[in-house]
């Protein structure tokens, strides 16, 4: 089973290497430099929550993602009331085991805990496997979030709406009714 939990500083070096390996395997380091940023996990943990997926039995590191809220240094898409995640990476040797899905799910749960109405992300246009994962988890294309930081790098925006928070439970009113009927 895959367990997702916050990363510990002792894991940062391994997380950095895993992130670079995953991006490289996906062809995302071929055209533009990004490796130094991907490797610097301490930096992204400064103001954001770095999560890891590990094998529950062996403890082996399988993947990582960084959960980002608006106002953080890494926030680039989210507006107030939304969340985003970045630097999602799965060890190329651990793919097709639901690791990416578990990491995305953890971000959705955190966003819901923060009362967010949506999670917004973007992917490279050629990252078809990632897009299939996201679309299978309720993300829909949000073309207004598409952008191109430099010519040749085309990013596709995706948004996953979150259900509104459940209406407050009613024990208070029930309590009042109970007490009024008791008097």
């Amino acid at each position, binding site marked *: 089973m895959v367990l997702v939990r916050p990363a510990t500083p002792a894991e940062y070096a391994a997380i950095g290497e895993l992130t670079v390996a995953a991006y490289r395997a996906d062809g995302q380091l071929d055209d533009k430099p990004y490796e130094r*940023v991907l490797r610097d996990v301490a930096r992204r943990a*400064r103001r954001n929550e770095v999560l890891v997926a590990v094998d529950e039995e062996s403890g082996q590191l399988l993947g990582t993602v960084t959960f980002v809220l608006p106002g953080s240094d*890494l926030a680039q898409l989210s507006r107030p009331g939304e969340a985003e995640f970045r630097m999602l990476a799965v060890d190329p040797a651990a793919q097709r085991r639901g690791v990416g899905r578990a990491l995305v799910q953890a971000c959705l749960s955190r966003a819901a805990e923060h009362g967010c109405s949506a999670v917004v992300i973007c992917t490279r246009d050629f990252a078809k496997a990632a897009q299939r994962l996201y679309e299978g988890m309720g993300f829909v294309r949000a073309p207004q979030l598409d952008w191109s*930081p430099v010519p040749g790098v085309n990013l596709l925006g995706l948004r996953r709406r979150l259900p509104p928070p459940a209406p407050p439970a009613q024990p208070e009113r029930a309590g009042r009714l109970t007490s009024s009927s008791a008097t």
Partner: protein
Amino acid sequence: MAEEIRAEMVANVWKVVASPGDTVAEGDTLVILESMKMEIPVLAEFDGVVKEIAVNEGDVVQEGDLIAVVE
């Protein structure tokens, strides 16, 4: 001659490499910006001295924001 270097996109200031007073050559990296899926070095466009670095690590810059002045 002074050159104002401005951000060309929304980005996060990932690393400040040069300091005011540094002598830089054309092509030297002053600041490294991080944006979605890439890192973007901000380079000196001619030989000179760094007069000002207007950003700090962790800052978010918007398109057009001043990053550095080289003269």
